[in-house]
């Protein structure tokens, strides 16, 4: 059972990651694209727009709690710090 659970957690992390709201938003946008197509509207533009909005929301959520890198390196355009998390 623990192996099955570990595999399920791995699959969730691989596909959904740590932001389920973005994954849900993408599914809803795809459903909307299909529905709009069925009423005769070619909504190829919808998904790219939703991606930009979802990415902005997701980045906003992440930056509220994110750890920091040294400012001097950011000024130089190379924010670098030893990575202890990955």
């Amino acid at each position: 059972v623990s192996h099955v659970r570990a595999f399920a957690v791995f699959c969730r992390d691989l596909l959904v990651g740590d932001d389920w709201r973005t994954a849900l938003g993408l599914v809803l946008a795809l459903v909307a694209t299909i529905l709009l197509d069925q009423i005769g509207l070619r909504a190829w533009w919808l998904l790219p727009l939703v991606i930009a909005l979802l990415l902005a929301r997701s980045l906003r959520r992440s930056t509220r709690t994110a750890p920091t890198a040294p400012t001097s390196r950011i000024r130089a355009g190379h924010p670098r710090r030893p990575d202890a998390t990955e």
Partner: protein
Amino acid sequence: VSTSLLFAAAFLACAVEMVEALTIVLAIGSVRGWRSPLLGVAAATAALAALVAALGPALRLLPIDMLRLVVGALLLTFGLQWLRKAILRASGYRPLRDETAAFRRGREQAAAAASAERAGLDWYAFTLAFKGVLLEGLEVAFIVISFSGGHGRLPLATAAAAAALVTVAGVGALVRGPLARVPENQLKLTVGLLLTSFGTFWAVEGAGVHWPGDELALLGLLAFLAAVTFAFVRLLRRERLSFHRLGVEV
């Protein structure tokens, strides 16, 4: 167009994951000897090849539109994760991965671990190398299988991944150290953009909607997503600098 982009995505994704796997294997091998970790690498590579060989052709048995919808959606959520993390690293909100530090930590852990030799094999070294390559390689396998489902180009994606594997392993064997100079985050940003573009393209096609300009729309998508990405990186970088000037820790 899509063939070149597909090859680039598979090659770069595999290269960046294999750079991380190489650091693990080099750290173990340089401390505990090379035989066991190299056997671990061979076993993990064989397992990944078997996974791709089993799932890749099987996907082609499914209806193409349904397949593109599902594979596109999965690739899209997967690619957006790469993109989001790469933007956070590029803007300084997340630390960059440091291969030299990871190599040092790996060596320390390998030296501290007790010997576990059975049947002429150091099982600690074997298991660590196997897990390292397998876990890094599973993401590559997922990408290759997705490309097979979305575009029917399993041989091309497999060849790109194999070329990256050989390149990274060859450079690693020459350098005998972690490939710290590889611009990992720029590569991850590029891969994230490519995967998100392919995912969007296939998901919309799978939904039954045709893109204007057919495959050329991929380039338009890539340009749009690249512009959005670089705008976010600049905005977040500027925001962090202004916070620092005000003395606010974010």
